[in-house]
């Protein structure tokens, strides 16, 4: 592709890789956009860690139910076939490895799959971790969805995270607006590029990259 992906295009691209029948947790923030772009014809179950499997779309404005929210505390609906459970059962579901996929945002993600997405470590910032650390190891696959560069232009895909970690070696794939990376024992493998080249990316990230079937 000849140019970087918009956020919508990026969420859509990731959504295409979510397989029929998977159970998926979309965390909070940017990854929740994926829900609106899941391909037609696939039945994908959404889990929200506050205690619902089988989450549906947002309700009509006059059908908002204060008892029915997602992990971002936004009103949602429940599909036929949904089930409710308490927080320990819900996190047991994740910790026990029963989900197929978690999609998470990132401040930084490293070439070995370390993820930092809960704290910038700033002296004045108020720490809040929520379910982030559980989500980071809460599924068979953990895909990171993020812009390649932070607002100040520094790369978010790094050799070593400088921000406090959420999980060690947990990310299995990284979807960014410039490239998709597979995290492998041999380092990052770029499987798709959007308006850039492998060489440009290596220079930008200052990381050795492998290309695969590009």
């Amino acid at each position: 592709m000849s140019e970087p992906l918009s956020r919508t295009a990026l969420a859509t691209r990731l959504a295409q890789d979510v397989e029929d029948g998977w159970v998926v947790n979309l965390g909070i923030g940017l990854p929740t956009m994926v829900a609106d772009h899941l391909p037609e014809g696939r039945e994908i179950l959404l889990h929200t860690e506050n205690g619902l499997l089988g989450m549906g779309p947002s309700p009509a404005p006059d059908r908002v139910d204060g008892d029915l929210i997602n992990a971002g505390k936004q009103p949602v609906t429940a599909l036929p076939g949904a089930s409710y459970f308490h927080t320990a059962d819900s996190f047991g579901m994740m910790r026990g490895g029963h989900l197929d996929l978690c999609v998470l945002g990132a401040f930084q993600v490293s070439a070995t799959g370390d993820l930092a997405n809960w704290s910038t470590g700033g002296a004045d910032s108020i720490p809040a971790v929520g379910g982030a650390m559980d989500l980071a190891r809460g599924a068979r696959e953990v895909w990171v969805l993020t812009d390649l560069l932070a607002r100040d232009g520094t790369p978010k895909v790094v050799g070593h995270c400088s921000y406090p970690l959420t999980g060690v070696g947990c990310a299995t794939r990284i979807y960014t607006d410039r490239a998709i990376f597979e995290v492998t024992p041999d380092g990052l493998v770029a499987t798709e590029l959007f308006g850039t080249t492998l060489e440009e990316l290596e220079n930008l990230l200052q990381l050795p990259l492998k290309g695969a079937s590009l």
Partner: protein
Amino acid sequence: MITKSVANVADALADVADGATVLIGGFGLAGHPIALIDGLLEQGARDLTIVSNNAGNGDTGLAALLAAGRVRKMVCSFPRQSDSWHFDRLYRAGEIELELVPQGNLAERLRAAGSGIGGFYTPTGVGTELAEGQEVREIEGRDYLFQLPIRGDIALIGAWKGDRWGNLIYRETSRNFNPLMAAAARITVAQVDEVVELGALDPESIATPGIYVDRLVQVAERPWMRDGVFVGTPEAAVSAASEGSAS
């Protein structure tokens, strides 16, 4: 005869002592026992340790308790939210202590307290700064952190319906931490929209058996329900939508 019902919130909370550890159910405002927290505010206990997933939303519930300076320490997973201004101010001013616990570990530590488990090993948080000072153990080739139970002197629970034995049912995602906290405290007080006849609750969906509940108070029905049936309200829509993104 077993009758967990008490006349009003004041009676239910009369004996909360200064310095108590109070478990407060709810995830954001879903299942958050607002009427009981208002009662605790009125009751006057101070120097409290509060265990709850969040550190207050807006100006009601736990946020009001924080604003009144009653809380010495928060144990929670996600204090920082778009509408957590009371906690934010206290924290920045150094007027409140914070113990940050990943949400799944928080839930499991409460469950351990309720079910007599002395401690357990979790993979969550290994290798992070929240693991600092914690015991790490390799089990079957994988690293885990040791976690202790979290017990409460009193738990405040937000349920939907209850009966005189103290059995509780919840609605949808308002269940969250409530059943865990109900079992983890010495005294458990639940607010419900309705106290129903014994036998009226489906025994297969009682998420908190009455054995865990000491006191039951009927409060006003939640705004989006009328006579036990969901009606929705545009007002609720506005309020819920303004909660912002948080976990």
